[in-house]
């Protein structure tokens, strides 16, 4: 299966990263330069500087408003758990640090494997709970599209294949590693065109929302 690993580390990774970069840049540039209607209303008195309002809104939306806290407790906590879990796995597992270093030249210390295994396990459970919640909530289910489910699959698959590869379970290591890398390639290809793009768009959408509401004098 060495050839499969060569394919994964070679053309597959090269192609998927190219699609990822192309797609992300295309969407961001087209969004930033798209035509927009000028807000001709006067800036309300007492409004903060636009940039400060935009940044503040980004952080404010990380937690729900107190009046909604109880009702959204599960989605808030579960969302934090798998987002943090994914960040820890992607950014602090030694092979991932090496991968990022090979692409960017940037490096930092890695965490012990046992920590990554623990975080990986929690992340998988959290992602499964997120799907269960989506399927069991009538409203969420109604507004879900194929994009949501594909995004869920391409997110959880690298975590599962990564856990299998790191623990050498099932197949030979090089086969597991190849499957893991290929699952990441699929993730890269899907990223710009599905809901994963929120990884970039979240900064723009929240910031834009904060700037607009601030201009109109809405107290946040």
């Amino acid at each position: 299966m060495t050839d499969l690993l060569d394919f994964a580390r070679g053309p597959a990774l090269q192609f998927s990263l190219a699609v990822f970069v192309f797609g992300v840049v295309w969407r961001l540039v087209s969004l930033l330069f798209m035509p927009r209607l000028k807000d001709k209303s006067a800036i309300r008195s007492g409004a903060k500087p636009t940039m400060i309002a935009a940044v503040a809104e980004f952080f404010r939306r990380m937690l729900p408003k107190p009046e909604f806290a109880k009702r959204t407790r599960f989605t808030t906590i579960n969302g934090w758990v798998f987002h943090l879990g994914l960040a820890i796995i992607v950014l602090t597992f030694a092979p991932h640090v090496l991968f990022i270093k090979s692409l960017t030249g940037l490096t930092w210390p890695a965490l012990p494997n046992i920590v990554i295994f623990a975080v990986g396990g929690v992340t998988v459970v959290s992602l499964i709970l997120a799907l269960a919640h989506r399927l069991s909530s009538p409203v969420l289910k109604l507004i879900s599209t194929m994009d949501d489910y594909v995004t869920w699959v391409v997110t959880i698959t690298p975590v599962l294949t990564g856990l299998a590869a790191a623990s050498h379970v099932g197949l030979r290591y090089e086969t597991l590693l190849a499957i893991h890398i290929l699952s990441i390639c699929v993730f890269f290809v899907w990223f710009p065109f599905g809901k994963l793009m929120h990884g970039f768009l979240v900064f723009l959408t929240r910031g834009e929302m904060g700037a607009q509401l601030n201009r109109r004098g809405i107290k946040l």
Partner: protein
Amino acid sequence: MAEPKTLGQMLEARGISRRAFLKYTSYLASSMALTPLAAKAMAENLASARRQSVIWLSFQECTGCTESFTRSFAPTLEELIFDFISLDYHHTLQAASGEAAEEARHIAMRENKGKYVVVVDGSIPTKLDGAYSTIAGISNLQMLEETVKDAAAVIAVGTCAAFGGIPAAAPNPTGAVGVDQLVTDKAIINIPGCPPIPEAMTGTISYILSFGKLPKLDHLKRPIAYFGNNIHDRCYRRPFYERGLFAKSFDDEGARKGWCLYEVGCKGPTTYNACATLKWNGGVSFPIQSGHGCLGCSEPNFWDKGGFYNPLPAPIRDVGKVAAGAAAAGAAAGLISAAAGHARKKNAMKEGKS
């Protein structure tokens, strides 16, 4: 004194006790994960084994494989196995030269038709009808075809003979290939490595002599007994990998403390060989123990896997230039999309729809 006809007679003539021989076969049996009963059977069968005719063909190679076997740490029973086989043809070791040497090969082939074993070290060039390497006026390709025709089995020793090795590295100017890409109708055993571990060679030959059949092989035709585990799983530095402690260079504190060499390019996790268990020079050390990462030399195409010092997670193709091109193309596409949006807006304004 008459030449001993069986290995048992030869050992007796050399003063090797039966106890020492049993110890050796027990070692061989355990190294191949065989049962204790197999050790006894091996001892009995080996003692009565008759001399095996071996024709050793050296093609595109560096003689490192032969050096590995003939310059082992100390005279051992393994060497006696080599003394015992009838090495009828070997460029480096045979006294005969020229036509006499070739005649020796033809005699061995004639007299042991269907019974002799062919050992190959070195890859076989195939471009220009094999003209890149010739011996005695014929190409390596012709010599291989001619010699394996009536062989009982073929053992490809070293990564060059098994998979093409270094001569097959990109751009592979001679069209070098391994034996099993050319020989498809014979039993083939690959014992790769650059060079291979001597015990893997002697163990495999002893197994064939003892049981008259090939040992269990993996999907790359390597004896599972010696190539069944990857280096990483058997490496004494593995605990440091699990704890996330890595040498960042070959002379930093981590290297001095013997931490894992994964970050400096060790290919142990994807390399199947017995280096970490049998080791070299009589079990003294192996490359990782000496402070250098595994190169993956017993795997196909090990020379072309993105560099010895690039870690396994790193892409093996240049991603930077492609990503830069993709970014430029993405930016252009984005600007075109935005321009189209502006044009639509302008038209809509004109038509009074906005």
